[in-house]
């Protein structure tokens, strides 16, 4: 099972999802992120899904759950790089992903986390 690496840069944790993730890997990511948030006291999480071609309801709900978990640790999550085709599909599925913020790319995501608009 592939484990998604989590990078830390300052107060922010970076996760870049590069491959077609199996359900177990996503669940593992949730666990690993929770561990890291506690260990590093990070205040922000950026999840880069630029390379992700398919987000179905399970993965969508997992991403939303990551957002809720982060909030419990007083951290904010920003989902960046969603592809237009994925966004259109998610909207059709009725998933609004309210617990995460979104941005076009990691740079804009960081700006969001740092409070400037």
């Amino acid at each position, binding site marked *: 099972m592939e484990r998604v690496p989590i990078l830390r840069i300052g107060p922010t944790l970076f996760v870049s999802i590069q491959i077609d993730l199996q359900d177990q890997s996503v669940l593992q990511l949730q666990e690993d992120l929770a561990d890291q948030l506690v260990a590093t006291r990070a205040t922000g999480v950026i999840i880069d899904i630029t390379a992700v071609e398919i987000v179905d309801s*399970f993965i969508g709900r997992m991403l939303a759950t990551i957002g809720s978990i982060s909030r419990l640790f007083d951290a904010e999550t920003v989902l960046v790089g969603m592809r237009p085709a994925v966004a259109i*599909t998610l909207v059709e599925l009725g998933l609004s992903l309210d617990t995460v913020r979104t941005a076009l790319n990691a740079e804009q995501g960081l700006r969001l986390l740092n409070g400037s608009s």
Partner: protein
Amino acid sequence: MDELLIESGDDVVRVRQRVRAVAADSGLSLVDQTKLVTAASELARNALIHGGGGTARVELATSAAGRAGIRVTFSDSGPGIADVDLALTDGWTTGDGLGLGLSGARRLVDEFELVSKPGQGTSVAVAKWSR
């Protein structure tokens, strides 16, 4: 025509990848490909988790109106669905009655056919046609 076994989480990924590969060659637009593969992912997972494992058949097909496209059929010999109508109630904001993601998958495809009876397993056939 491909038939794939769905017996693990890795198989769900495999189904996604196979449908995506076939879709890429079938003349479907990128958005339509994404919708089909996403629907296939939902249904493959259902077959695994609710159906106790099953199979997926991916084939190129032509619609009644003569358009080229793809049909994917999922079968499992699980417990079956007692209330098919409830499972398919379309709630865009609330999801379907049984949380199976069926109404969502149905919205993503052009054709959706579900056959299920308690004790007789479930079969879902979906199709997406090029425009």
